[in-house]
């Protein structure tokens, strides 16, 4: 365990900037987002960003390849390049957990090399949450906001940052700034973890349980009549899917640049009416079906295919961003058999 003062953290960022692009959470005009660190950038008070760290690995829009066509012939130009080495600082436990969920999709055979490339070059420095939001419910998914995973785990306690390397990749980063860090024992951190446990008890959604959901429960939930009521006001926009750190559905599209064709992928949403639309039919015609798909995927289908792991980390972004305030919390509560979630 190492520590450095709040002032020295900027020296740490500076030192790391020579080998890495360092992204840190900043707050500007009521918005919290990751900004590439340069001299003078000031850390936000609260590190939870409006959009999650997913965007670094699975960006909103990403070029896949180029085509040059001439007459009847086609040339495919593979424009993949090795990603830069980068560090994301201050990632909360939920968002780090979401990356391991994305790994289950993108790193499963056949491996998505666009994602893999960035994942291999990215270093995740997490920070324990001492001030979670009212909409947070990560503990529902057994994520511990006091003991986040990642390459390096940090705690912000008083005037100091405490560092703990968790992986080789993380330790390599800490070695580079060893001169700026001092050795400390676990004492302060243990106290902070206790404090966070107390904070967790205050969270309005702390008792939310998903015990009724999980693998192989498709038949139990698919035909529930409550879906109609839950989805009735859904606008069919993509807000929940785009702010979600685990949503990863995408579309592949071609764009004629005038000089050739750029094939790119971009976020897509199961909430959109054309998501499953083909020339001769649509497997999910109504908004109810599309709404159901999103939550069945997170609470049943994904666990079925992934050893019982849910594809929600309880970050609460959909809870605070949905235009009609319909969200996975309300879905879980409505469809649970009663008892715990009442």
């Amino acid at each position, binding site marked *: 365990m190492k520590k450095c003062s709040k002032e020295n953290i900027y020296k740490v960022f500076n030192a790391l900037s020579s080998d890495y692009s360092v992204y840190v959470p900043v707050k500007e005009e009521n918005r919290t987002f990751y900004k590439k660190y340069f001299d003078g950038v000031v850390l936000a008070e609260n590190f939870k960003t409006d959009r999650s760290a997913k965007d670094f690995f699975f960006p909103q829009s990403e070029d*896949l*390849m180029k*085509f040059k*066509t001439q007459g*009847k*012939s*086609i*040339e*495919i130009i*593979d424009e*993949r390049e090795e990603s830069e080495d980068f560090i994301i600082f201050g990632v909360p436990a939920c968002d780090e957990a979401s990356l391991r969920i994305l790994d289950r*999709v*993108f790193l*499963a055979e*056949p*491996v*998505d*090399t*666009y994602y893999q490339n960035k994942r291999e070059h990215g270093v995740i420095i997490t920070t324990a949450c001492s001030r979670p939001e009212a909409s947070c419910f990560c503990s529902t998914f057994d994520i511990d906001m006091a003991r986040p995973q990642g390459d390096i785990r940090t705690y912000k306690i008083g005037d100091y940052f405490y560092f703990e390397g968790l992986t080789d990749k993380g330790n390599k980063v800490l070695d580079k700034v060893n001169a700026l860090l001092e050795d400390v024992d676990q004492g302060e951190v243990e106290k902070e973890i206790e404090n966070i446990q107390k904070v967790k008890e205050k969270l309005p959604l702390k008792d939310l349980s998903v015990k009724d959901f999980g693998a192989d429960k*498709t*038949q139990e939930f*698919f035909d529930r009549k409550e879906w109609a009521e839950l989805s009735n006001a859904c606008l069919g926009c993509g807000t929940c899917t785009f702010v979600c750190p685990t949503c*990863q*559905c*995408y*579309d*592949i*599209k*071609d764009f*004629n640049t005038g000089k050739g*064709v750029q*094939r790119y*992928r971009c976020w*897509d949403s*199961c909430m959109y009416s054309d*998501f*499953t*639309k*083909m*020339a*001769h039919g*649509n*497997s*999910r015609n109504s908004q109810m*079906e599309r709404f159901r*798909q999103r939550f*069945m*995927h997170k609470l*049943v*289908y*994904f666990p*079925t*295919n992934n050893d019982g792991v849910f594809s929600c980390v309880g970050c609460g972004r959909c809870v605070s961003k949905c235009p009609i305030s319909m969200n996975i919390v309300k879905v879980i509560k409505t469809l649970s058999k009663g008892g715990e979630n009442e």
Partner: protein
Amino acid sequence: MSEPLIPIVGVITDVRIDTPDVKTFRVVTVDGKKAFEHKPGQCAMLSIPGIGEAMFSITSSPTNTEFMEFSIKKCGCVTEWLHSAEVGQQITIRGPYGNAFPVDTAFKGKDLLFVAGGIGLAPLRSVINYVRHYKDQYGKIDVVYGSRSKEDLVDYNEIIEEWQNDPQVSVHLTIDREQEGWDGHVGFVPNYVKELNFTTDKTVVLCGPPIMIKFTLEGLKSLGFSQTQIFTTMELKMKCGIGKCGRCNIGSKYVCKDGPVFRMDQLSELPDEY
């Protein structure tokens, strides 16, 4: 590092007009070889840069070592563009995708009954020609195939010249309505299947429009077939082909990865969302 989303360039070396809205395209790589090996029932993603990608079942048999064929019905942007393509046109191709018909397990040693309607024959042609090739390993083959009219029967020439002359194969053709120059059976596929009164020792492979599948299943049930004997192949919207883009799922199964071939009893356990 190979990337599954990046295709290779293929060349259309032959275009055959099958019906007023179906053409069959022969595709090889730029150096004249077969693009990749596949199993009967698998699919490939074809694309024309600037128009987009679309998934098609590989119509030719894996036993064909020289090229692949795709029978494609005109119904969307990509297919429309393909229908206007000429020999020599390059396209892109990636695959193979999905599972295959269980030719090495469930089909082994069995009498096989293929039931298809319209363009639904395309995905079955691969497996029909595969089992014809390895005839010793399979029993008798029955093909019930129907279409709106004689002109709409896909691969009519192959059916007449090859399948009907194959002693192992019995072909039962039908068209929806009476037509001049047609002395074969007239009527819908589901009824014809019932009329033919097949014995229930056969393994069935079914592909066609949803309404045909629905009524054929009812017909087969009344003849005493069980769902575990019946296989079908599905088509939903696909973009990636590798189970990641998230749209072709039926419940927890992705058609591009866990399908497109499903046994009827497995399919009936999935949500009715296809």
